[in-house]
């Protein structure tokens, strides 16, 4: 009886081996790490990597290790890992495109350990290089004091262009944080004067935008927020040219780092409505 069982076992293993052989010729097997989270990741990774009769991928959720077996005459490890990366999953060879990663389901958004953080870009390096004397150092520090306020403003504006109320509320919250973090005493005299003048309105407007997700209301409040920001940026300056743009349909202005018109008041309906009225350098 026992021996029968053994024979059966052997026969079964033989069968399964021949089955694999039938599927993939010249099979080569390798084990590699693929970053992922959950059961859903498992099916996505395996589907993306496998190709009928050419490659078979099996991924273990716990160890994050994938077993690749493939026909070495037809494909290679790189090709398989590239397909998996294009589906959103990093490995030690490829990093997924950001879009592929961000379109994964929430439960699949694993920690991207393999990704090295991007260093400050060359632009800020260049600014650092141009520093020549102490007075200009203090100048640039003053500008930096408000830099984060403007940066948050631009993020808010971009959210309004896209018409995403939720994102706009979040970005407006960031703006509020940036505003409260400003150390007034470090501002130069003329900037300080304007800051005092617009501070209350800026705070109120950004608070109000963050309090709602209704894009219509947000855009309405954004008008006065833009007007005050304009007064501020005119005296304090920004590290790069800023364009003051005007939309006749909304009868309102906004600030942008680009001269190309992208209208935050109408979004996709009237994206290109408007014109540049002033360039602030």
């Amino acid at each position, binding site marked *: 009886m026992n021996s029968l069982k053994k024979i059966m076992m052997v026969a079964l293993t033989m069968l399964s081996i021949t089955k694999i052989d039938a599927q993939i010729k010249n099979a080569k097997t390798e084990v590699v790490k693929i970053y992922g989270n959950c059961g859903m990741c498992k099916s996505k990774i395996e589907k993306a990597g496998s190709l009928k009769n050419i490659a078979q991928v099996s991924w273990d959720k716990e160890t994050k290790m994938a077993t690749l077996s493939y026909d070495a005459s037809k494909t290679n490890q790189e090709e398989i890992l*590239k397909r998996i990366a294009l589906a959103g999953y990093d490995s030690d060879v*490829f990093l997924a*495109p950001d879009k592929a990663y961000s379109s994964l389901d929430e439960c699949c958004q694993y920690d991207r350990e393999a990704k*090295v953080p991007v*260093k400050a870009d060359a632009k800020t390096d260049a600014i650092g290089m141009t520093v020549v004397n102490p007075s200009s150092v203090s100048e640039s520090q003053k500008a930096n004091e408000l830099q984060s306020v403007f940066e948050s403003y631009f993020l808010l504006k971009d959210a309004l262009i896209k018409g995403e109320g939720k994102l706009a509320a979040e970005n407006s919250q960031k703006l509020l944080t940036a505003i409260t973090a400003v150390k007034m005493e470090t501002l130069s005299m003329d900037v300080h004067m304007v800051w005092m003048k617009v501070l209350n309105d800026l705070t109120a407007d950004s608070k109000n935008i963050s309090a709602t997700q209704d894009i219509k209301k947000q855009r309405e409040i954004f008008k006065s927020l833009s007007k005050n920001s304009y007064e501020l940026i005119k005296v304090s300056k920004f590290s790069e040219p800023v364009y003051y743009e005007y939309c006749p349909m909304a009868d309102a202005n906004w600030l942008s780092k680009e001269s190309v018109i*992208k209208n935050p008041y109408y979004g996709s309906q009237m994206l290109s409505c408007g014109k540049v009225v002033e360039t602030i350098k």
Partner: protein
Amino acid sequence: MNNFRLIVLFFFVVLSVNAQKTVRYDLYVRDTIVNFTGKPKRAIAVNGQIPMPTLTFTEGDIAEIYVHNELEEDTSLHWHGLFLPNKEDGVPNLTQMPIKPHTIHKYTFPIIQNGTHWYHSHTELQEQIGMYGSFVLNKRANDPTFRKGIDDLPTVPVILSEWTDMDPNNVHRLLHNASDWFAIQKGTTQSYSEAIKAGHFKTKVTNEWKRMNAMDVSDVYYDKFLINGKSESQLSQFKSGDKVRLRVSNGGASTNFWLTYAGGKITVVANDGSDVEPVEVDRLLIAASETYDVVVIIPADKTAYEFMATSEDRTKSSSLYIGNGIKQLVDPLPKLKYFEGMKMMNDMMKMNGDLDDMGMSMSLNQMDMNVVMYPEITGEAKGKSDKKMTGDDYNSNKLSDITTLNYAMLKSPMKTTLPKDVPVKELRFELTGNMNRYVWSLDNKVVSETDKILIKKGENVRIVLHNGSMMRHPMHLHGHDFRLLNGQGDYAPLKNVVDIMPMETDTLEFNANVDGDWFFHCHILYHMMSGMGRIFSYENQPPNPLITNPKLAQRKLFADDRMFHFMAENDFATNGNDGEAMYANTRWSIGTEWRLGYNDMHGYEVETHIGRYIGKMQWLMPFVGFDWRYRRMGIDEHEQNLFGQADTKDNRAVFSAGVNYTLPLLIIAQAEIFTDGNLRLQFERKDIPVSKRLRMSLMWNTDKEYMAGLRYIVRRNFGITTHYDSDMGVGFGMSLNY
């Protein structure tokens, strides 16, 4: 005065330093076997490599290039974008005679410019199988236009190309025979069943009603796309923070490439070998034969960023990883929405075959009608919308966050104005084409149908181009850079290729400053070989010493677009053989159809027509012919035809004259009168795309004959068929076609 003396002295010194520097290259052109896809195929390698070696010079050098032709066929090399004496330009039968097998030809010319250029064979289809390479001209270190932070960056020559396992002569023949094999390979048949599935049945019917076959953004299916001869490669010598200047040339025979980068923006710093003011974009399309110099930054440590070239039809791509470490991929470009494109084309096409830009004056690639097909700009395909489109709906930069380069964004850093107070010659050309018969021309005339266009030395030549065809055409001018009038005033960019999209109008101008016969042509190789071009010839110029017999040279040059293409197919069916053969060129067609039964009852018949296509759309074809048939006691006996004339189906040997006309829905109506006085009207529609691989044919005529057939395309030259024929009954079989 003193200053002047100094300047003279300075020039003298520069000249004496540079003038004598001769740089020599020896190029050995040899047949080779390559294996890009797993199958060994013939190609041409120069010095054992594909692409050809990068040739590097510095402005002021004298180039001496020895071409050793070790092929069994003619060759030539054209220096694309270079200013040189006409006899060094490398166009066989125009500026020189072809370089014969086992001979050596020396090209020599002074290098009087700088920038990124390339070189390729101008002989037949050799460019497709390996004869392309980078040609880099460095600035002198003391050049006043030397740009710190750009011209001193590390540079890498990058040449893009494509590979097909098919013999390019066969590619060319298939294109002329309206084969849809490439569409099947690409998955872009756009058949009726696919249209119904996508909710676009009406779109498809309208499309065929307007006499269009399925369209694509490119003509040929390729097995591989290559960057510097490889589908993937890495530049691991660069590290975080490095800026790299890529000197990109598109050496593809018929492919435009999208360039995208995983590490952020791409800064364009030069185009067609001339500097432009740096402009930052997310992506750009490099048309066949254009060159762009771009600067990219590596933003993070231990990471290589993907620089990707994707063919315009987005079937495949090629990657260059810049940096050392883990490879950060870039978002792939999503597949095109073909039925959206078809719908757009329907809106633009008038019933007479002309294009209607609906009042949008388009130029400089600013509006891209294909935007309706780009999911990344206009969203995923979603059924139908009946919104009328306006100009802004085609401007991709206004529709999304993605910034795409267009020609209006190019600005020369210095004034490029032409000499004033000289005569101006204005020329207008309409780019014309006929996709169904693959005829490409200017003003509906191919090179061999026109005279050379005479221009005078010293005058300014202004050319206005309008593209009235349905494909884009990168038009290239030999030996000169032209200013592309793009709204930048005195700072219009200098180019030698202008890619012009359907319905666009572009204006370019140049000063005629060097004698010779200069080719002006579409740089899509198969369009050029079909005759899409003109020759500019300087008046009263000295004869070219390399062209000893101008008449013979011209005849050989014209032979390219006069060439006939052969096709044949035969259906071996249970009830007989059905087939046709055709031998056709730009205007003429010699075609024979036959039906051969296996017994006398089924009989046999052969119809031969020799016709000439008329008009731009070539819908009309008058012909003369001969009809010969015999059978005994057929199964479908009629005493008379529909007009009450005696039926002579059983025994006929007559000459005929008639006319073919293509009706809406691509039905070919044929009226034919025979020497015995009989008249026949026939309606036929061949190759209705039912599904991806299934084709249906229908026929009926006034001799009360009719036919219906189905063909399933298994492989390029093999299909399975079934048909019902009023003379021969039901048949099953297989068809072979060439």
